[in-house]
């Protein structure tokens, strides 16, 4: 069984990174980036943050097989739904 005991320093490094990314995201929102770049930066930083939460806080890094498959299903279906719906709006 792999109930690896993270050293608490690993979790501390993750929360530190999450807070730094939050600061970056807030700062970037005031940069008035042109057009869609504004949205892309905000969502890219959010995606990195969620990935850190899922891999380290939710320990997906330590799990294999079924759990990984299930964990990817939700986001994959949501991404598909959003892409198809946006494609429909943009091609009207």
């Amino acid at each position, binding site marked *: 069984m792999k109930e690896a*005991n993270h050293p608490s320093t690993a979790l501390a490094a993750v929360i530190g990174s999450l807070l730094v990314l*939050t600061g970056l995201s807030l700062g970037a929102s005031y940069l008035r980036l042109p057009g869609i770049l504004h949205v892309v930066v905000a969502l890219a*930083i*959010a995606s990195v943050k969620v990935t850190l*939460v899922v891999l380290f806080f939710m320990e997906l890094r330590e799990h294999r097989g079924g759990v990984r498959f299930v964990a990817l299903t939700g986001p994959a279906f949501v991404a598909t739904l959003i892409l198809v*719906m*946006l494609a429909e709006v943009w091609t009207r």
Partner: protein
Amino acid sequence: MREALAFEPHFESLERQREAARLGMWVFLASEVLLFGALFALYATERAEHRAGFVEGMKHADVIAGSVNTVVLLISSYLVARAVHALRDDHVRFAAALTGGTVLLALVFLGIKAYEYTAHIREGAVPGGHGAFYLEHRADGLVSYFNLYWLTTALHGVHVLIGMSILAFFGVALWRRRLAAVHAHRLEVAALYWHLVDAVWIFLWPLYYLMR
């Protein structure tokens, strides 16, 4: 003996029960992702068509309150992750304190959210698109924006309330030493739910506060 009592008879071992509990929770969380994902998809299409209303709507958002709440939820997630590790090491009272910290931060989050809702209601930025606020602010898509804002943040708020209640239950059980290291997977599964609540907010924050 304690270990023998910690799993149900239909499981071969405690480890099998842990794996089943974990997988079951992940399947449930995937269904939650689809629920919020549908609202994100609606946001994407409405924003693509009526950008002006979304930009205008976000001008009425309290960026400081939203950002503080982001930090509050991130730290709460960290605390409950630490609590799971503390319980695995059989530091039961420390796990109780960390879980209690998570519950306190959940209360702070709800308090700040209630403060924001009160400000929106005072201003008239309520769902439905009726009243003086919408006569004064006529940006195309503003009604959609506030309908989605209220629906999504309220649904998230309900999740905060549920997660907080579950963790409060665990906090009390831990403090009374009713749980030990062999039960760590139970707290782990509750913590997974809490991390999802955090993960959803990580996206709600840019969608409803930053992408002006």
